[in-house]
Every structure is written in structure tokens, then in C-alpha cells.
């Protein structure tokens, strides 16, 4: 993926979660939705994070196959004004509450 960050590249660079998010978002060039492929980024450590599961998620959580060859993480700026960002990874979604990050993503997306 030419315009998404490579997982190895991100890990090697030791990029913080926010920088990784921004770089992925800027490259993706999407307004409102940012996507990045990362490995081990600690998104829940960002301001005001909470991980949620959808109904039925408990049933499916143990299901580990088939796995993605390279893990995909997708960010959705759900509400820019409130700073709500959903981070989709594996079979979970984490809701970030970070208005500054949301603003930066929107700016980066043009």
C-alpha cells in the first residue's frame, strides 16, 4: 500500500500513536476517515480512550481465524467537534476522545 504506513516501518521508527495516526491520515488523504496499517500502536493510551464491543462480540472474540496477513487499523473521525475517533483493530473498536487529534487529522486530510 503505497499511501499507507507500513507496519514494519512504524515499529522500526518507534512512532508514537498520535504521530502514527497523523502520518497515516495525511497519506490517506481522506476527509473524516483516516486509515493506517500499524503494528502494536497503543491507541488506548491516547486521551480518553475506551474499548467497546458490539453485541455478539463476546461470542466472536475467540475466533482467531482466518487472520489478516497484515493487521489493518482503521480510524473513523466520528464527531470532529467532540473529538470522537473510533479506532478499528482486530475485532474491537476503541473510542478516543481527543479533540486536538481530531482537528489535526481533519487538517491533515485537507
Amino acid at each position, binding site marked *: 500500500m503505497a499511501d499507507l504506513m507500513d507496519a514494519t516501518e512504524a515499529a522500526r521508527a518507534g512512532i508514537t500513536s498520535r504521530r502514527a495516526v497523523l502520518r497515516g491520515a495525511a497519506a490517506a488523504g481522506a476527509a473524516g476517515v483516516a486509515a493506517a496499517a500499524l503494528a502494536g500502536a497503543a491507541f488506548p493510551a491516547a486521551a480518553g480512550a475506551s474499548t467497546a464491543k458490539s453485541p455478539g462480540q463476546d461470542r466472536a472474540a475467540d475466533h482467531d481465524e482466518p487472520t489478516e496477513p497484515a493487521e489493518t487499523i482503521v480510524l473513523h473521525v466520528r464527531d470532529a467537534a467532540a473529538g470522537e475517533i473510533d479506532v478499528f483493530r482486530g475485532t474491537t*473498536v476503541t473510542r478516543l476522545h481527543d479533540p486536538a487529534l481530531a482537528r489535526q487529522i481533519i487538517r491533515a486530510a485537507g
Partner: protein
Amino acid sequence: MSSHREAPEISQDPVADSTDLYAFVSPDRPRTVTLIGNYVPLQEPAGGPNFYEFGDDVLYEIHIDTEGRSEPNITYQFRFTTELDDRNTFLYNTAPITSLSSPAWNRKQFYSVTRVENGRSRRLARKLACPPCNIGPLSTPDYATKLARPAVHTLDGGTRVFAGQRAEGFYVDLGSIFDLADLRPFQNYQVFAKAHGFKAAPGVNATKYLNVHSIALQVPISEITARRRPVIGVWTTASRQRARILNDDTGEWHCSGPWAQISRLGNPLFNEVLVPISRKDYWNHQPPAHDKQFARDVARPELAGLLPVLYPGVFPNLAKLDARKTARADLEAILLTGIPKGIIKGFTNYTGPVQSDLLRLNTAIAPAKKPSIFGLLGGDAAGFPNGRRVFDDVVSIELRAIAGVTYKLIDPKYTVDAAAKILTDGLTPADLGTPYLTRFPYLGVPYDGYHHPS
């Protein structure tokens, strides 16, 4: 159709489109129940070069409520993986496929089965082989014996499982029914057909010579019932992960996030015929336990109001029932709670007061020696709406019920219209292109693409 392409959104996503659900005490192994969920509707057998398969990115589930709360006490999950042996050929197979491990078969699909009971998961099997699609006599010779039968896998405890292509077993005159509810055997009475001078005619099976993909389980009754509760509620769902990104370098989709339900099915025709088109997609996202919000669509079905209008003078008593705005407690019981004890002598499939679209099966009722395709309406308590067998004429049963036949269960003084008792789209299992099987997985051998269409 039963639930083929029944909602706008899922009609765009065939691999996740649940089309039919069956649940019945297995006639040849009466200590077991057979559960079948069908997907990928309306397959033309000549589907090359890319033949039909399950979605690797879809979570397929069959849920069982054993305690009458309309929540899943037991769930069977199915995940599929497709493997390509030779990346340098455009062919599905390069020679006759003579076994499930044939090196000539290039694109194979495998699956895992997980049982979740009250939140605890247990993997029952992994890398079980699906059969190939039935391509034709050169590519898939001896399909039934060499390819389909070996794809019936036996798991620990005697559970059997099959996932793969089958002949469509649901018969329906789709072309007529969705042409303003025209029923060919009665079209000489239908207001628009009459104007065209149409005479009464036999039904035409729109699904004849089409295939479908089935996930079939045969499970000991003791493994899917709670103690002293023989009635179970069954439904099937398909889910996708919430986020999907297209890798524009490879053309592949990458998925992440929690699973979100996008298709479900309990009783045949529920979402298709009862739920308004504006809410069909929403219905597909909802769990059955939330179905109270659709109870009005069951209690006042639009079709019950249309029949007297489209067939003037044929349903006078139904018209009066409609005019009184009578809530159809009969349909609510059949479709949303099950039929309580005392309504039909010796029969119940009541699960409890929670209104939910479940296929309810009383597993204590033995298979019928002489089954009726009209199920309970035909005096056969082993058939729909007590679960559903592959041959049950659910179209006629539901048409008759909506036309008022079952309202007599609520009001013994109600006079059922003569036409309601014989309402049908004019089809029987004789209108299939191939017979059902007498053993698991019961649905017929899929039509091959060489001979169909002929």
C-alpha cells in the same frame, strides 16, 4: 422468496444473504435435530470461471435459544478460508476433480466450526473441506458420491456438519407473486389479471435449476436443549466487520473492528413480506429479542389488507376482519412467541412471552410417518411452524394463515373464507428439478453447469 434478496442492503451482498433456515427432528436419526442455513441465493449452475463460495470475511452463525428468553444460549459459528493452489492458471480446476484433495482442483474452501455456549467458546473442528461446486460431468464426475458425500464430516459426539453447494429446495412462484400478488391458480379472480384475460394456471417454480450454499448441522437433541425444555428457538445470522478498506495496490479488501450483524433469518418470509421496505435493512441489524418493535407488522399484515382488494369478493370475511382493525393474535403467536398449550390439542412450541422472530421447534415431537407439506395446517405437527422441513410448503402455509385460516384458533366463531383454505401459488416439491435426499444434508445434489440451463 423466503428471504432471498429480501432487503435492499443485503440484496447487494449475496455471500452474506441468509435465504432459508430449516430446523427439524431428523427423520432417519430421530435423536438428532438438523439445522440448515442457506446463503448465496439464485446461483446459476453455469457460474464459471469463478464459481460460488462462502465469504471468507463473513461470520456465519446459527443460534439456539434453549431457555425462552430469545437470547442465544448456544451458537455455532462458521468461518471460511479459501486456498489457491496454483496462482498461474485462470482455471478453477485443470482436470477432473475426483476427490476433495484432488490436485486438479485449484480453488478450495475450508471452514472451522466453533460452539459457543453461554459465552464460552469451544472449537469443534478446523479445516473441514467444502465440496467444489458442481461444474459438469467432465470436471466433477461422480459428484454425489465422490465429492458431496465425503464433505459430510462427523465431529466428536456424533454431530455431523456439511457446508457447500446444494440444489435450491425452496419452491416459489416468484415471478407471479411479486407481480401484484398474482397467484396463478386463482388469477382468474385477481383484479388486474382478470382485466388481462388471464386464466387460472399452474404455478411456475422460479428457483428450479438454481443452486444455493448450505451450512448444515445435525446435532444430538440432548446437546441443544435445556433440561425439561424440549422447545428451542433457532435463527441464523451473518456478520461483517465494521471497517473495510480497499488496498488499491492489490485490489484486496482488509477488514477490522467488531462483527456487526447484517443479515438474519428465523421464520420464512418474515422480513420479506411483513416488514415495510423502509425498515428491512434495520430489521436485519436487530437481534430477535428486540422484535417487539415489529409486532405491529405481524398483527396488522399489509398483505391481509391487500388480498380482499386484489381478489374482489373472494375474501369477504377477511375483509371484515381487516375493517375491524383486528389484531391478528394468531399470527403473533405463530411467528413471535410460538403456540401456547391448549390452542391445538397436544401441541405447543411456545418459548415464552418475549416477542421474537424465531423458528420454534418442539424437539419432543417425532418425525411424521406420513408428512404433509402443509405442516401443522395439514395436521402434521412435525412440520412448519413447528420448525421447518426442507419440503414444507411455507408459501402456501403463510398465505393461508395471513388469509385468516389460523384466526379461527383465536375466535372459533370466525368463518374462514373458502378460498383461504386452499390458497396456494400452485407449487409442490414435484416442481423441483431434483429430489430432496432422504439423509443428511437432505437438500438435493446441486445442478451442474453443463446441463443447466439446458
